[in-house]
Each structure stands twice: as structure tokens, then as C-alpha cells.
């Protein structure tokens, strides 16, 4: 009973703050609402027997990535950026399309994602089990991710380094 209450409370929080993210004009409010939404999702991860990934969600997403977003918003001083209401027809079409998409997705989940009983026994998702899987069957993708992160660092430095890019474009 208790976990149903927790589920509905945090599901409502996640959906409401996700709506605030896309509807609010101020990007700072959007970013902070997204942090709240991610926290509620980490509660969902705990309910799904994945406490390690819940911790990772709080540290990596709600911590590191959202701090990066807030840092860029503050750096570029975007709090007061106004969004002119051009293209009303396209905006209306966007809202209707996504509403239809939501209704269709929920309808198909209710209709077709019907499961039989789960396998019995506990689901072992300790960090040790994840670590063993990462370094045995997933060791190649793991190394690839490390190379990708290195490439992302180099790319980010190259893109945001203003003077070097300028001097290459305009010699």
C-alpha cells in the first residue's frame, strides 16, 4: 500500500514539473524544475529495484548535468531572454501533434503491454552485479564509452574556444 502512495505522489510530481519545464518562460525555472523531475524519477528507480542507478541518477543527472545547464544559462545571461510568439500555427500544430502522440502511446501501452507474472525470486541489482556485467560481457562498449567521453571533451573545447575557431575561419 505504502509504495503505491509513493508511486502516485512522485509520478504526479514528475509530470507536473516536466510540464513546468516546457511551459515556463524563464530557463532558470525550467532547469530547476527539471532537477525536481529527475529526483522523482530516481524515486521511481528505487521502486524498480535499481537503487544503484537511482544514486547515479541523482549524482550524474540532477547533479552534474543540470549544474552544467544552469552554468551555461547564467553564463550567457539568458534569464531575461524573451521568446517572441511568432509562428502561432506551427506552435498549435506542435501542441496538437504531441497531445495525439501522448494519447496514442498511452493507449497502446494499456492495450498491448500486458505482462504475465514476473519470474519469482529476488532481482539482484547490486552494484557488484552491475560491475561484473560491465567488465565481463560489456567490456568493449564500456571502453568505447570512455573514448567517446574523451572525444566529447575535445569537441567541447574546440567548439567553445572562441579565438582558435575565429583565427582558423578568418586568417
Amino acid at each position, binding site marked *: 500500500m505504502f509504495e503505491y502512495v509513493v508511486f502516485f505522489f512522485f*509520478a504526479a510530481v514528475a*509530470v507536473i514539473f516536466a510540464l513546468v*519545464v*516546457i511551459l515556463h518562460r524563464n530557463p532558470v525555472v525550467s532547469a530547476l524544475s527539471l532537477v525536481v523531475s529527475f529526483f522523482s524519477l530516481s524515486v*521511481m528507480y528505487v521502486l524498480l529495484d535499481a537503487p544503484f*542507478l537511482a544514486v547515479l541518477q541523482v549524482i550524474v543527472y540532477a547533479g552534474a548535468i543540470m549544474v552544467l545547464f544552469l552554468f551555461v544559462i547564467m553564463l550567457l545571461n539568458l534569464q531575461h531572454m524573451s521568446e517572441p510568439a511568432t509562428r502561432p500555427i506551427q506552435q498549435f500544430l506542435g501542441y496538437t501533434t*504531441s497531445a495525439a502522440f*501522448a494519447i496514442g502511446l498511452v493507449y497502446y501501452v494499456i492495450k498491448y503491454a500486458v505482462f504475465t507474472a514476473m519470474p519469482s525470486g529476488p532481482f539482484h541489482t547490486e552494484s557488484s552485479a552491475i560491475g561484473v556485467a560491465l567488465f565481463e560481457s560489456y567490456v568493449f562498449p564500456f571502453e568505447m564509452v570512455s573514448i567517446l*567521453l574523451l572525444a*566529447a571533451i575535445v569537441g567541447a573545447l574546440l567548439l567553445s574556444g572562441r579565438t582558435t575557431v575565429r583565427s582558423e575561419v578568418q586568417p
Partner: protein
Amino acid sequence: MIPTQWFLILSAILFAIGVCGVLTRKNGITIFMSIELMVNAVNLTFLAYARQFHQLHGLIFVFFVMAIAAAEAAVGLAIFISLFHHRETIDVDEANLMHW
């Protein structure tokens, strides 16, 4: 034990909210945050199915998705900083260099 279907419904709603943000907003940072929302909805689906079938692969996938999202956020925000330096705005309507 909460049914798997409920998590899938929550994930579908969050994904649709993310789609709505990408389609209707013009602020580049907000569009980027909507993409992060969609990524998280997919993560929730992965974990719901992982629990349903007692498979560890879903959890490993979520781990990799988080790493990719970190890389994506770094590169994407660097692109926005660069765009801001050139155009003094991050309105995506202004970023029409590759317009036909």
C-alpha cells in the same frame, strides 16, 4: 509490487511532454532540456522492462545512456555557447546557417 504497465504509462507521458517541448519551444536550452526529459523517460522504460524480465541488461543500458547523455550535454552546450558568440541569441530560429 507496482505493475510494470504503470511505469510504462508514466514513461510514455514524460516522453510526450518532451516531444511537446521540442516541437513548440524556440529557446535552444529549453529544447535541450526537453531532450534530456525524453532520454530519462526511455531510461524508465528500460528499468521497468529489466525488472519485469529479471534481466540485468536493461540496467547496463541505462548506465551507458547516462554516459552518452553527459557527453551530449557537454557538446550541445558548447555548440550553444559558440552560437551565442556568433549570433548574440540562442533562439533556434536565428540559427539558419544551413537553411535551404
